């Protein structure tokens, strides 16, 4: 009834040998060889996940965005140094929102005398969040005294819970900004540029991730040739070589190398001087004028053999393109553009033909009623500046 007792003999034999029957060498078989990438991702077994597991920091602090989103990226955990904290505190405190500015920094503000304590509190908060990697609720529950100032017998709260969350968010942003700024500094030093315009005007204005990206692009644009040279001499950065620069030469580069570049100089518009004049609102750099009219001036450069053509009007158009391209790359102008849009941008929404037929009154995307608000100024507590929105409809309005 119970058999001969030899059904599981094979298992007993193995025990005696002391080793498993099928032993797969660890190196030869990886998860990736067996399972679908999506399966691995679902079970949090990718290399990124291993990286997160290996660090003794909560996962939510290691990811830039929520782990619920598909595009969550791992933060480069470069140690946040103590001496960065002061810069971070200054940077964060000015971005905390209007209510903080009103309460602490305006002339005659309610808590004006505590503003240095506020900066100190932000510094303490950043230290706890980024260096000690503590959680916002933990700080709020256990370190709140450090975020307050005691004016006996009163206790004045400098940062609210919402502010603390904002500090955390801005702190993360500052870390990304600092990371890129260091990258830019390294690039600048490696190329040994010593550009006075960069040192005096661009560098002091670097305040956001966007401006750093613009400045990097500007260096790449202005010192394109230099960049190529230095790459040859630096063998220690093979990863950068992988990105092969496009071999297609832009129209700008073609024109820049022709006589049109000299014609463009005749405009007396050095892009850097223009920007300095524009930013300062004064004429620090006087515009130099030519003795002859533009068309006559352009005629001097007309040379059918050089490949740029002989039509003076076309030459002038090329010269304009040259200056406009250079001006368009300027980081300071781009920053200014963003400020302009932040203060006076207008949003227009027009339904397409498909939209007109599809969006009914009960559709969740029903933006049609909004066309009654022809120009509705929108002020909200989450924006420093308002964006005014104009909605027009082809049908209803």
């Amino acid at each position, binding site marked *: 009834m119970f058999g001969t007792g030899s059904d599981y003999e094979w298992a007993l034999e193995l025990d005696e040998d002391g080793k498993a029957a099928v032993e797969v060498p660890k190196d030869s078989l990886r998860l990736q060889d067996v399972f679908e990438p999506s399966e691995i991702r679902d079970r949090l077994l990718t290399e990124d996940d291993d990286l997160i597991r290996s660090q003794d920091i909560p996962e939510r602090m290691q990811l830039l965005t929520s782990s619920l989103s598909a595009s969550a990226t791992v933060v480069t955990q470069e140690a946040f140094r103590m001496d960065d904290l002061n810069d971070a505190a200054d940077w964060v405190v000015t971005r905390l929102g209007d209510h903080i500015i009103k309460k602490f920094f305006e002339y005659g503000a309610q808590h004006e005398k505590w503003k240095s304590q506020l900066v100190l509190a932000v510094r303490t908060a950043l230290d706890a969040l980024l260096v000690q990697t503590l959680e916002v609720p933990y700080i709020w529950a256990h370190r709140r005294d450090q975020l307050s100032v005691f004016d006996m017998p009163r206790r004045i709260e400098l940062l609210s819970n919402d502010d603390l969350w904002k500090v955390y968010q801005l702190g993360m942003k500052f870390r990304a900004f600092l990371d890129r700024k260091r990258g830019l500094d390294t690039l600048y030093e490696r190329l040994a540029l010593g550009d006075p315009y960069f040192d005096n005007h661009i560098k002091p204005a670097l305040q956001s991730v966007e401006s750093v990206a613009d400045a990097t692009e500007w260096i790449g644009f202005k010192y394109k040739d230099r960049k190529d040279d230095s790459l040859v001499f630096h063998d220690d950065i093979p990863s950068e070589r992988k990105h092969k620069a496009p071999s297609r030469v832009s129209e700008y580069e073609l024109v820049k190398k022709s006589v049109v570049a000299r014609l463009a100089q005749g405009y007396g518009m050095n892009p850097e001087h223009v920007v300095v004049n524009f930013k300062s609102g004064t004429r620090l750099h006087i515009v130099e004028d030519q003795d002859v*009219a533009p068309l006559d001036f352009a005629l001097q450069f007309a040379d059918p053999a050089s490949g740029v053509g002989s039509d003076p009007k076309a030459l002038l158009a090329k010269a304009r393109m040259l200056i406009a391209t250079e001006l368009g790359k300027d980081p300071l102008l781009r920053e200014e553009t963003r400020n302009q849009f932040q203060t006076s941008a207008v949003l227009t929404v027009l339904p397409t033909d*498909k939209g007109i037929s599809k969006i009914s009154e009960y559709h969740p995307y029903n933006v049609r009623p909004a066309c009654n608000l022809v120009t509705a100024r929108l002020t909200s507590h*989450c924006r420093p500046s308002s964006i005014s929105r104009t909605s027009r409809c082809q049908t209803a309005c």
Partner: protein
Amino acid sequence: MTEPQYLHILKAESELLVTVDIHLQPEAIEQWSNSFYEAVLSEDDNEVVRAWNDERRLVIKEVLETTLLPLGAKWMKEWAREQAEDYLAKAAATRLHEVCLAPLSVAGHQD
């Protein structure tokens, strides 16, 4: 308009139901370009200088139209989206906080 409506607008755009255009008001552009002209135009007044100044105006116009304005619009769109998303996340967090702290509610029970 409420904040999340902007997200709806963007969603509708991705479904090709609406077209979204972010731009500066014409007066703002004019004011802005005028301060540009201040920086580049020559103050002398004669035929030749006037002709050059017209050329310079064309340059400014070109840089605004081909580079800066499209760039600003693109950035603004993303920036506003970020703000709207943050706002929505904040609202959700507040609601969640309330739910967590609320007394137990039993289905069918009303106070």
